[in-house]
């Protein structure tokens, strides 16, 4: 299921503003890659180009190439809707659909794309909720509103919703920053478990989290406000945190930043 992402020389623009410049990287399948860096360094922006979510913002566009195995995500014939079915996303704040029950939330991606068979949906909903480590907590109240769950449960519900459409890649944009430490731990355990099936990319401000869950870590930085963000280095997580090649990375990791 999982696929490799190959980015070459990617620039991201919002209107005339160049937000990210010259990023090239490879994200290995069945691994967790963490993006770290100061606020505004373009890591979230770059993450959103991996499933073309940046196009939702008016004026968002890219130059360069993103390959998912042998598929060019920015080929003219490529439909962004199709890209997003292949590359799922979990957001910073848990955002279950407020009008839908727990079941309907998980089934949403399939149902809104035309899957009607109740038995198919039931099977996938259970599998996804188990996959998101939420099944035991909600199996008796699948028809209750998803918004009634706790923040951590809501976020796992959103992960279940994202994996229900069986994507190849799972993007996570600071998935724990709105959660308490116990919920964060639950999500982190889930991420480690999910990497056997998915390619996972996670943006985080929490360096301990990057150290705990990721196999590889990418450090992004900006020179100054208004300048585009750049990828400084990408390496094995242990190397980034213990013996980074770049001075900027070392400074950021050790808190001597800015």
């Amino acid at each position, binding site marked *: 299921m999982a696929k490799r992402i190959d980015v070459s020389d990617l620039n991201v623009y919002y209107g005339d503003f160049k937000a990210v410049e010259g990023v090239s990287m490879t994200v290995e399948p069945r691994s967790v890659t963490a993006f770290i860096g100061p606020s505004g360094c373009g890591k979230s922006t770059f993450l959103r180009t991996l*499933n073309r*979510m940046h196009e*939702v913002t*008016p004026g968002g566009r890219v130059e360069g190439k993103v390959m998912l195995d042998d598929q060019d995500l920015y080929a003219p014939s490529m439909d962004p*809707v*199709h*890209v*997003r*079915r*292949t590359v*799922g*996303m979990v*957001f910073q*704040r848990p*955002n*279950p*659909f*407020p*009008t*839908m*029950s727990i079941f309907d939330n998980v089934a*949403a*991606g399939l149902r*809104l*794309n035309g899957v009607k068979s109740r038995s198919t949906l039931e099977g996938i909903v259970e599998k996804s909720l188990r996959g998101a480590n939420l099944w035991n907590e909600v199996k008796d109240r699948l028809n209750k*509103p*998803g*918004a*009634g769950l706790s923040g951590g449960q809501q976020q796992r519900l*959103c992960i279940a*919703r*994202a994996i229900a*459409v069986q994507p190849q890649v799972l993007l996570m944009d600071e998935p724990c920053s709105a959660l308490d430490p116990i919920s964060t731990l639950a999500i982190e355990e889930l991420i480690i478990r999910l990497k056997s099936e998915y390619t996972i990319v996670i943006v985080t401000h929490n*360096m*301990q989290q990057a*150290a705990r869950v990721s196999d590889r870590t990418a450090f992004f930085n900006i020179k100054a406000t208004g300048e585009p963000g750049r990828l400084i280095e990408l390496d094995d997580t*242990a190397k980034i*945190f*213990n013996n980074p090649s770049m001075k900027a990375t070392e400074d950021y*990791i*050790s*808190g001597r930043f800015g």
Partner: protein
Amino acid sequence: MTMTAHDETRPGGTGSGARLGTTGGTGTSTTPTDPGRRDLIESMDRPHRGRAIKDHVARIVMWGSFVLAVVPLVWILWTVASNGFHMITTSLWWTGNQRNINTTDAGGGARHAIEGTLIQAGATAAIAVPIAILTAIYLVEYGRGRLARVISFMVDILSGVPSIVAALFIYAVWVTTFGIDRNGFAVSLSLVLLMIPTVTRSTEEMLKLVPNELREASYALGVPKWVTIVRVVLPTAFSGIVTGVLLGLARVMGETAPLLILGPYTKNFQRDLFNGNMPTLPTMINEDRSDFALSTAAERMWGAALTLIILVLLLNLAGRFIARRSAVAK
């Protein structure tokens, strides 16, 4: 307590290292050991007379405004209800019409006017609501640039058009240009002009309240934009949209100028929108007002007024019921 003043001055947060395996610095305590901070905390405990007085004044002003707004409302409701109550408690009022009842005769029915009002309002809503909601969807979800700005401006202008001007416009098109007789549908068309801007604006506001995160969540599942709007955005905003539609409807149900110009009163039943004059509650009120000196007519006028208020109230209650049943889950 082993904490020293030195600990207080250490810049918190930025200094904590984040090596593999470390759990970060524990937060420094806020024990007020340094004198400056102790002063600050004590000054916050001191009562602030000035602020308490301001608070009190603001409270009085707000309650005063509330009473000022409620007095006329209660007054109107009481006057209408006490004068009209007698009339609407007769069963003939809800079943009969005014045929062969002279102004000097007491009683009669209002069913012809109730039906006319409901039929016209229904036709108005059937035309105006789809146009208004689609316009709002365009403005919020799709509209960028010049066209959206022009449409938004036009909606503003339309909402400023006096009802009598809307009525005269329809008269000019319907009667003068096309030469068709005045009828209930012409009234509905003029009411459509009045209803579109209010419903468009209220729907726009409700759509803007739907968090962008929900749209993004849907897009991220590979759901096309139009499906996202139909299945995620509209259901989330549903209760607000319904409320807006009903408020718009309540407003046009009480409109009188277009009715006087395009739909003169008649005492008979008239259920055909496209044929002849259609009686309505506002025109019935107007008809009986012209003979207000006669207690028989005055009674009917109050009765019709109370009936109109009840209809609008029922409409609002129905709207709340619908909205609650499908409300965003708590």
